[in-house]
């Protein structure tokens, strides 16, 4: 019986379990794990929310959610109500990770039929909580607007970071056109190789 276990780099628990299973069958084998862990930047666990105005969070998963302010989006006279909020999530990394936050509409867009080119300004940003941030004013009519991008250096081994997407919607003095307003913030996280 020759048993030779060579671990060239980090081995996952799954690999070890498989090796133990093979040994239990009393068979000879050689396990070569010549791969290495890839660089990864991964979200772990469900996000947490902090919202200052009554809102409904629906379809919340590890990587997506809908924050609906409903009728709280405005006052009774249709002027825009002040709102803010943030979403916090945990990121596990073993590499230098790049974060890019984009806005689908560059503002809150009235997506009700017929209400074209009607927007509500707001501010948003994404940042590592260990750093600081200045919210970016979104008042552009451009789509897929890059709000911010930043890089977190590679750790020696691995790191658990808390990253926040924060937004602030100022009040408005003038009434806003009726309808449903929407923006989609997308934060892409990827290793910088």
């Amino acid at each position, binding site marked *: 019986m020759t048993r030779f276990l060579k671990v060239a780099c980090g081995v996952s628990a799954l690999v070890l379990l498989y090796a133990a299973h093979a040994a239990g069958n009393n068979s000879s084998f050689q396990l070569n*794990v010549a791969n290495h862990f890839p660089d*990864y930047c991964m979200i772990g666990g469900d996000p947490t929310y902090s919202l200052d105005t009554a809102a409904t969070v629906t379809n919340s998963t590890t990587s997506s959610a809908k924050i609906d302010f409903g009728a709280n989006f405005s006052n009774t006279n249709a002027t825009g109500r002040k709102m803010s909020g943030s979403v916090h999530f945990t990121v596990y990394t073993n590499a230098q990770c790049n974060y890019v936050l984009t806005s689908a509409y560059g503002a809150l867009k009235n997506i009700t039929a*017929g209400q074209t080119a009607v927007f509500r300004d707001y501010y948003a940003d994404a940042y590592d909580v260990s750093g600081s941030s200045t919210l970016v004013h979104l008042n552009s009519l451009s789509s897929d607007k890059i709000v911010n991008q930043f890089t977190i250096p590679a750790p020696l081994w691995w790191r658990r970071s808390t990253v926040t997407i924060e937004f602030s919607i100022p009040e408005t003095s003038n009434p806003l056109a*009726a309808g449903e307003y929407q923006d989609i913030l997308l934060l892409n996280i990827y290793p910088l190789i």
Partner: protein
Amino acid sequence: MAAALGGVAFPVTALFAAADKVKIEVTGNIKPYCANSVTAVPVNAGDPRKAGSAKFAFTVDCNAPFQYTMQSDNGALRLVNAPATASRDKIEVAYDVHIRIPLTLGGAIDNKCSSSSIKQGAVSCKFTDSGHKVAIKQQAETQISWNGTLSQLPAGQYIDRLTVFVTVKL
């Protein structure tokens, strides 16, 4: 998973995704409304025997597509305290009314009606709605104008009252 040399080699890269993303959708609703939905304006023509005009303004504040109507109490400038037996042509002066309501993001509603076509209970003038547009805190203008009349009108005050109704278009 692949076997090699009697052993196994794991494609470890397949066990982990290298990148990730978060999508947050932020939404809210604003209900349709029209403020100051009824505006009543007295019209005083002064001496209607001579041609003249008068203007007045009112605010239209609708955050959704809207429609409006205007109606006149008398359908004409009418002599105050006119004798009950007097014929209408002796105590009334017809006029035209021109309404202009600017719309947010450009354009305007522009309508002209005769006073008789907006008489209360018998409104026949066609008023244009705002289409898909809105009018948020827009200053609307109304101008009434009348021609001088050759008939002998009794001296006195000739008045009417116009009322504007603005409602959200359903």
